[in-house]
């Protein structure tokens, strides 16, 4: 359309008169060529059809009572009714530490924070949103979160160490509270892990998997970069073997072969077996993540550490690992998300995690044919946490300045 003319002073064009207008934006975005017009029409039609059918189904046809009736099962599985307060205690602790951390480090994104706090409140106030026993807890949650935020906001940098300590102590403490301490008559009776279920089990499997596999992963990564051939080849063999097979085969092996490997008389329950499988599996992936971090540490760091007289162990622990691990924090969050999704595979070996519970619910006669509702609900739960974590990890990446020096 533009004719090619020699650019003499005579035909230099005046600056464009175009102003940013809504119509101009619309034109450039949606109707700049016939192909673009086709794309726009096609995409709009797709959005319309999908939204209309999904919303129409969800609002009129769907029978959500399958979710409402079974909400406790979906959340905590068959955890004894009288002991559910322990789960709530852990959630409240999480809200407190989360609020504290928000106040210390993030501060901004008040709107997002308000939304996170408003969600449980809204659930509590909805007429059919929560059971009477859950309502006070749901109302308490935002209050605790706000208290934590205010504390963090005013104590600022001084509370940083406390907050990090609380985060580190949180998981062991949670497992202790969920598992229990005393015999059946005591004040914190032991709840067998066979009855853990639902979202609770999903979260516990993820957290235990990530945290316990981490030291193994670091050791394997160091082993893979070791100059000692036997250690290096053993590490490589383990990592590649595990990464070459699907998780479900490892879970299967853990369920069937772990009892065979142990001496007679020692039994391990199903949840623990799945945890072992998940830990063995994740350790290999963690090792590759950590190896990436190790490779990013410049060689001069090793030489400088040796030059000031540190030995190999001191160099690794004091100089190399801190830098390497700082590099891989976002990748580790990515691994956490991947594992969170992968824990759903324990449903195949018969555990009642979020997916397993949903499967067993829809196989009950009174809920037959309601698969869409149940599975859509757990899809939303899986999606929500995974999406939020993915976004937090991106923010973390920026905050830590990964890739910058």
């Amino acid at each position, binding site marked *: 359309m533009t004719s090619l003319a020699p650019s003499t002073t005579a035909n230099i064009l005046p600056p464009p008169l175009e102003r940013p207008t809504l119509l101009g934006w619309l034109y450039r975005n949606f109707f700049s060529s016939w192909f673009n017009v086709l794309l726009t029409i096609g995409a709009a039609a797709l959005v319309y059809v999908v939204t209309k059918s999904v919303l129409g189904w969800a609002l009129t046809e769907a029978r959500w009572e399958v979710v409402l009736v079974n909400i406790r099962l979906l959340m905590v599985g068959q955890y004894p009714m009288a002991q559910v307060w322990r789960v709530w205690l852990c959630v409240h602790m999480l809200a407190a530490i989360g609020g504290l951390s928000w106040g210390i480090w993030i501060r901004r994104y008040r709107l997002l924070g308000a939304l996170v706090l408003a969600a449980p409140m809204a659930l509590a106030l909805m007429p059919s949103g929560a059971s009477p026993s859950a309502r006070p807890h749901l109302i308490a949650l935002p209050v605790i979160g706000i208290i934590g935020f205010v504390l963090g906001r005013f104590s600022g940098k001084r509370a940083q160490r406390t907050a990090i300590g609380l985060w580190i102590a949180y998981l062991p403490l949670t497992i202790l509270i969920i598992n229990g301490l005393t015999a059946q008559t005591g004040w914190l009776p032991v709840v067998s892990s066979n009855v853990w279920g639902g979202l609770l089990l999903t979260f516990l499997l993820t957290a235990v998997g990530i945290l316990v596999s981490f030291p193994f992963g670091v050791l394997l990564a160091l082993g893979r970069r070791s100059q000692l051939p036997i250690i290096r080849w053993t590490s490589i063999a383990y990592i590649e073997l595990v990464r070459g*097979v699907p998780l*479900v*085969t490892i879970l299967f092996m853990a369920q069937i*072969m772990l009892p065979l490997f142990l*001496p007679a008389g020692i039994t391990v329950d199903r949840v623990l077996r799945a945890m072992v499988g998940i830990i063995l599996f994740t350790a290999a992936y963690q090792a590759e993540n950590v190896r990436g971090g190790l490779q990013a540490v410049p060689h001069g760091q090793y030489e400088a550490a040796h030059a000031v007289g540190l030995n190999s162990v001191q160099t690794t622990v004091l100089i190399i690992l801190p830098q390497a691990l700082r590099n891989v924090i976002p990748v580790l969050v990515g691994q956490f998300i991947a594992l969170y999704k992968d824990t759903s595979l324990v449903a195949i070996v018969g555990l009642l995690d979020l997916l397993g519970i949903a499967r067993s619910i829809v196989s009950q006669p009174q809920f037959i044919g309601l698969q869409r509702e149940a*599975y859509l609900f757990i899809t939303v739960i899986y999606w929500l946490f995974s999406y939020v974590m993915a976004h937090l990890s991106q923010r973390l990446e920026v905050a830590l300045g990964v890739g910058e020096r």
Partner: protein
Amino acid sequence: MVRAQPCPDHLLSLNSAHATRAPGGRAIPLWRDVRVLRLFGQIVFLAGVVAVFVYLGRNMLAAMQRQGLGLGFSFIRLTAGFDIGEYLIEYSRSSTYLRAFEVGLLNTALVSVLGIILATAIGVLVGVARLSRNALVQFLARAYIEFLRNIPLLVLLIFWYTGVFLKLPRVNQAIVGPGGLLISNRGVNVPWGNPTGSLPSYLAILGLGLILALLVAFWCHALANRTGRAPLTWLWAPMAFLAVATIGWIGLPVAPLTLQAPALQGLRVVGGKQLTPEFMALLSGLAMYTSAFIADVVRAGLQSVPKGQVEAAKAVGLKDAQVLRLVVFPQALRVIIPPLTGHYLNLTKNSSLAVAIGYPDLFSVSGTILNQSGRAVEVIAVVMAVYLLISLLTSLLMNWYNRRIRLIER
């Protein structure tokens, strides 16, 4: 007080002649010699690993003896005695376990290969759409990626199977598509070619066509090398093949395949080819899920090509399509291939989730074999070995391709 420091290795190798002597001239005792310590440490480590394996192995053998089981692979010659829903090779319940295993392996291969092709096609499309200048298209692509990347594949598969494919209308109210396509809760019935007597000779003709196409490709390359003009290999080689295929089809006295549309007879569908709901759910679920990851990889790859490359390509007069094909894509490919390999491998491994929706893949069939024969250790070992082999072969292949296209710097 001076402590003896172990020398860093590179120093050690430099003055290895002095390594066994301390500065004072006395020999370093054995227990302080780094090389001895390293060797000793490795031997201890190896002994530890072997000890753990021996301990576990002995426990396992003892446990198996208590259950009256032995180790060995002789069982694969026994009769399987169970049915498999779909098979690509001849199979019945009187076939051997080995045959059942092969059926599962072929099903895994089928769904993996088709899944990889589909996922790549969708992924590239969505990845390009993600960078579209059309805001609506971009939003759609982004929503697609962000939704699928953040849900577990297993949930997607189960939802797809029980919530979509099994909720399709019954077979007597099947949706009829173009060309006699039938869609019902028993799966999708597609028109299919039935082989006639002349199929073997037609296959031979196709082989000839392939050889001819290769010859044409070589010739194109030679011509391009001689004249310096762009080789049109991708035009002439397929054309040669198509020409041979067409002439062969017409030339044979009987057409090698007769197209047959599926038809409803009462509550049965006859003719055509039935794609079961399990197969369809697994294939579409795997392809969709993986395509979201591939789309992200493609987007990152395209974005990694510097803008100057596009501008320079336009400046020398290439058209938009040419810019994409000749300049942007070859460079993006270098960034795309390594993660793409990972996603192909993931898809293959993820196909083992078929067990949750009842598609008889390798893992699912092996599970049945395990239950029937009770040979847990052997079956699990074989399954793991096969997946490992597939993974290693795929990585070898993709690494070879990656080496071929990588940037050769001056």
